[in-house]
């Protein structure tokens, strides 16, 4: 789960990492009040869970409350790479002498946290990574022992942090690692980590991705989830406990297991179709979850047909069949469905479907065949609606 900059900074502050003072605002009026309270120049920053907001015009310097109001009016509601701006972070403006980059990431391949530090931080860090990889100092940390101060010092010396600043940077590295570990993050990043003209080092941005599986231990972080920001259908899916990702095509997909569903998407494309979504009902789904999943898929008006691809392991195909039957009797389903059931209780499931004799439901015995059929039906539906 990604956190907003202001939430990440709230966590940073708990671990002692210096950040600028600021306020959240969701209206231009609030932005003005925030600027009044903070005094002096402020920066109005769009809070979106995607990078590149600066280049997109989502960050503006304001000389005072009125200008803050004006910028807020322009930025709120703005679309930044598909994310609508719903809130702002108004913070005291900083004078910047240098921009550093600092991150702690969960390096799966090495099975160790990885710390990266560069004195060439700022918006072009990805370019630095490509053109001057030697300018990014890297260090893995033994997760059982945890970080030791010498590791932070080595990073500073390797990155070329001036000696007079290394005390502050060492401290921030140790604090950022503590935040990473303490909040069970998958990523914590400060870019830029600024140096002010009077040699104070401070986090000017905050990127924080936490492990969803660990949220039960961090109720305060769990509460930071922005239910408003997600796509309404993805939100609906989450509430129903299924994994749903919206895509651009017209064939709705419902399967069990992430790998099988991904494979199904690929097969649909390989057969000339285009998937409307990724939906994994997970293992051991009951009839109600099938109904709920269908509701999520059908909420997308672009869906012209639905492809069921179930290979029962923990999941029982008879439960899936019951779900399909229930959905067709309770929901207003107008799009055709192609159903492929295999594995645990497949025979029983197919028998139930045959017995129910549902309009618009076709059965297919292979994944490839089912995909072809679903595409064909979607195409026919599209043709019908166009004509």
């Amino acid at each position: 789960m990604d956190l907003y900059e202001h939430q990440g900074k709230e966590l940073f502050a708990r671990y002692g990492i210096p950040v600028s003072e600021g306020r959240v605002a969701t209206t231009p009026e609030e932005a003005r009040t925030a600027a009044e309270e903070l005094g002096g120049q402020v920066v109005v920053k769009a809070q979106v869970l995607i990078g590149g907001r600066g280049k997109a015009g989502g960050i503006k310097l304001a000389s005072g409350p009125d200008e803050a109001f004006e910028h807020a009016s322009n930025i709120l509601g703005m679309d930044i790479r598909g994310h609508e701006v719903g809130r702002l972070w108004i913070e005291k403006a900083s004078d910047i002498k240098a921009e550093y980059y600092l991150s702690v990431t969960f390096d799966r391949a090495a099975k160790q946290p990885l710390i990266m530090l560069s004195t060439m931080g700022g918006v072009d860090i990805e370019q630095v990574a490509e053109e001057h990889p030697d300018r990014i100092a890297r260090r893995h940390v033994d997760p059982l022992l945890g970080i030791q101060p010498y590791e932070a010092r080595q990073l500073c010396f390797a990155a070329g942090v001036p000696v007079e600043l290394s005390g502050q940077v060492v401290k921030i590295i140790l604090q950022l690692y503590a935040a990473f570990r303490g909040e069970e993050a998958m990523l914590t990043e400060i870019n830029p980590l600024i140096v002010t003209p009077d040699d104070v080092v401070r986090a000017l941005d905050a990127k924080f991705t936490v492990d969803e599986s660990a949220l039960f231990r961090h109720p305060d972080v769990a509460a930071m989830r922005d239910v408003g920001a997600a796509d309404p259908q993805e939100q609906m899916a989450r509430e129903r406990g299924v994994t749903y990702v919206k895509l651009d095509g017209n064939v709705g997909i419902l399967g069990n297991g992430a790998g099988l569903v991904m494979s199904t998407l690929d097969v649909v494309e390989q057969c000339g179709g285009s998937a409307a979504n990724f939906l994994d009902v997970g293992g051991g789904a009951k009839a109600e979850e099938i109904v709920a999943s269908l509701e999520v898929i059908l909420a997308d008006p672009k869906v012209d047909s639905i492809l069921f691809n179930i290979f029962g392991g923990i999941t029982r195909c008879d439960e899936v069949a019951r779900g399909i039957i229930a959905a067709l009797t309770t929901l207003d389903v107008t799009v055709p469905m192609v159903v492929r059931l295999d594995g645990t209780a497949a025979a029983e499931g197919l028998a139930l479907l045959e017995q129910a004799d549902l309009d618009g439901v076709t059965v297919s015995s292979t994944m490839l065949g089912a995909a072809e059929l679903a595409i064909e039906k979607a195409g026919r539906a599209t043709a019908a609606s166009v004509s």
Partner: protein
Amino acid sequence: MGIIVGSQTRLVVQGITGREGSFHALNNRRYGTNVVAGVTPGKGGQDVEGIPVFDTVSQAVVATQANTSLVFVPPRFAVDAIYEAVDAGIQTVICVTEGIPAHDMLLAWHWVRERGAVLVGPNCPGVCTPGQANVGIIPADIFAEGSVGVVSRSGTLTYQLGKELADMGIGNSSIVGIGGDPIVGSNFIDVLARFEEDPDTDMVVMVGEIGGAEEEKAAAWVADNMNKPVIGYVAGLTAPPGKQMGHAGAIISGSSGTAASKVEALREAGIEVGKNPTEVARIVAEQRGVTVG
């Protein structure tokens, strides 16, 4: 013979008195697995249809010489169960549990490795050696005995592949689901190395998916270390970047972790890659000289 589990397996099921634990323990026994014990703290002395239940894994090991553990414990307690099994001397631990916090696994991975034990999973369907033992939730009846090893990050996709192979009359030495989490106990290389050593395996199918760099590393390893042929498949060719596709591990960040880059790495390593499960099965059949119907 197969790998990881087989006729030598003496299985203890941790969390055996839970709904899923008991269902699959019995299912595994029905398949022929030698399920010798179960563990549920506080329920020592009971039994699950004849399988004796103990309070601790230590007790189970002492009483039944269990050598393999299947972990069916909720995510908050699952790492603890892994530690307990390894500490009790269990050398093979298979963890089905989904949703274990990644930082917990980070520590457990190092601790388990240092003690020389083999961990498969978490968030994996288990391991099946057809005709000998099935440990986990794999619907083993799909798979026939044979000599093609299967290693996969995904559960149901493995079944799909097994089904496609079976439809062509091809059987398997062992099927290993390594799991889709960011940190898994055994990765592709660990399992491929075992297949390379296994006299009953003469070919391996490796099923990857988007996210991480394990497929790329495995490809390089195969090129340098494997003599047996490997056929590859990677799911998620059409997955959009930045979206987590179900598995905690399945996410494309930037340009790394895409299916296309993985397929390319596999091909560069001399591994033939099928574009979908049906094609993978066809390639296997062709390489084995099986007539494709």
